[in-house]
């Protein structure tokens, strides 16, 4: 953006000077560059949109359509029933309810705990602070595979297996899925915040805890939004934790019920072009990402702004 603006300014300045061949050359090359940029972006966009189109058309096909090589993209009489069947087979509503419970409580936990901890790290210069921050970053680079076995035994001794607690509980203590990253995001934001307001509150006799709740937290809207979206998305898509801790069907999350659809031989067909396709699986996959997609459409603008404002990049 910046570069572009300056270039436009420059060309304006040049316009007052006599037009020479050089100017036209420059102008032409600018147009060519711009066209190339569009072509490249559209090209890459295809990589991302293609799977959705593919999923959608195939989710509407029946075995007969798959055998018909002439209908690849456009489906004659689409089988909307596939969606109903997928919903039944994967007990969609139960999974959705479980997903919402896990995802919303974990996201809330990470927003509350990570912002609280990050405030302590950003504003107070107590002994051991740098060590703690280093440990926060260290906890990020440990693969979950290393920790999962003792944690599993720990939760099984506490009788927490097949409940949502192993996933939700750590989020209220600043751990959980990528918790360290959220602490990092909040800390960066708090450090960029001017101290004046807090100092005024301190002079007025407000305790640190009150200052945090009533002054600092309301200002932290953009990192809260970023944390909320990332936490919701990552928990929604996470297959690692549920596959270890949740085994009974009553507690299964959406992503796990997709597995049931995919491995059901009766619903998987070989298409005319030799591909293995499961229309029900495709319908199920669309149903799983649909809630996320709706959320994203509504929040995407605020989300990208939030990322820019939180200074994740610095």
């Amino acid at each position, binding site marked *: 953006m*910046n*570069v572009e*603006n*300056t270039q436009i300014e420059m060309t304006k300045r040049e316009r007052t000077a006599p037009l020479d061949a050089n100017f036209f050359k420059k102008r032409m090359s600018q147009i060519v560059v*711009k066209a190339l*940029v569009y072509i*490249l*972006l559209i090209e890459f*966009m295809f*990589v991302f949109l293609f799977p959705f189109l593919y*999923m959608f058309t195939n989710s509407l096909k029946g075995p007969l359509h798959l055998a018909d090589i002439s209908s*690849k993209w456009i489906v004659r009489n689409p089988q909307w029933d596939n969606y109903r069947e997928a919903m039944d087979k994967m007990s969609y509503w139960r999974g959705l309810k479980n997903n919402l419970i896990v995802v919303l409580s974990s996201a809330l936990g990470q927003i509350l*705990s990570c912002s*609280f*901890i990050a405030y*302590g*790290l950003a504003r*107070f*210069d*107590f002994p051991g*602070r740098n060590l*703690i921050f280093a*440990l926060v970053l260290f906890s*990020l*680079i440990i*693969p979950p*595979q290393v*920790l999962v*076995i*003792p944690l599993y*035994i*720990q939760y099984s*001794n506490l009788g927490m297996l097949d409940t949502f607690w192993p996933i939700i509980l750590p989020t209220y*203590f*600043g*751990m959980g899925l990528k918790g360290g990253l959220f602490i990092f995001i909040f800390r960066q934001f708090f450090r960029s915040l001017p101290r004046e307001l807090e100092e005024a509150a*301190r002079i007025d006799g407000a305790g*640190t805890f009150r200052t945090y709740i009533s002054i600092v937290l309301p200002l932290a809207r953009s990192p809260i939004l970023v944390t909320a979206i990332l936490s919701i*998305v*990552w928990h929604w*898509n996470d297959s*690692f934790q549920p596959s270890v801790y949740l085994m009974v069907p009553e507690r299964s999350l959406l*992503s*796990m019920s997709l*597995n049931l659809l995919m491995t059901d*031989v009766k619903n*998987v067909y*070989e298409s005319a*072009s*030799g*591909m*293995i396709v499961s229309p029900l699986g495709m319908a199920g*996959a669309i149903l799983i*990402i649909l809630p*996320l997609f709706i959320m994203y*459409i509504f929040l995407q603008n605020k989300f990208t702004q939030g*990322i820019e404002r939180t200074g*994740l*990049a*610095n």
Partner: protein
Amino acid sequence: MKKIHLTAEQKYNLEGYKFVLPWLIGFIFFFAYPFFSSLILSFGKVIDVANFEIKSVGWQNYIKAFVVDVDFTPKFLETVRNTLIDTPIIIIYSLFIAILLNKDLKGKGFFRIVFFLPVLLGTGLVMKQLLGTQLDKELLQAVTGRAETSDTQVMAGAISTPELFTTYLSPDVAKVVQNIFNRLSFILWMSGIQILIFMGALQGVPIELYESAHCDGASSWEMFWKITLPMITPSILLNVIYTLIDSFTNVDNKVMEYTIKVAFTNMEFGYGAALGWIFFMFIGIVIGLVFLILGRFVVYLGDR
């Protein structure tokens, strides 16, 4: 005992402990304890699960991973190879897209929506389903009725465009091209967050630098190498580390899958822990090297 006098400022700073207390509790129970017990576990064998009784077996678990277990080594090497190949591609690609998206374009909002889609869906089983890795050999046999199934069919995911390749190319060439294409589109799908981080960094580069460079007659190409790239080195480092971390829980990570299978299906807790540690050692070495190599080139604005 002598009473210690603290200034008001010091007293205030000590209140920081109140804020990090939840983290300390969480760190002990959900990190430090499992961390060390998994280290001990990796050198032992669980005899009694309820009481967490462990018998030490020395390096046996580690030796087993590389010498006895024929399944692990290829999976580990594949993951190592994928990590080392994918990370640079993701970094270069996401920087490239970030630069393009950072230009003044019509329909920028729309492009952004599309390019951040992978942030939403780049992980998880939906992704795996798209790649078709979910389909195991037995299932394929049941469907096609053939004993031998080709790689083409296992890779039947939506992301590739195999039909095009298989129609116009000879089968052998098609297979190679298709594998590359499959991996590449998968890699592109992993780069959502990285694009975001780079875009933020690019916007943080002071415009004055470009202006003065332009006055001095620098071309856009020179400006990229002399201004943009050095200015965003901190986020390159951040992105490399993030990409490495992200690959742990990647659905494509065969080592992760195998570790879960060993630990929770075969109930070999000690061996599973050892596998986790082997993977961690590898990641630790890579991150160390990245810091050593990239750390030299990183430019912090505060230094000047």
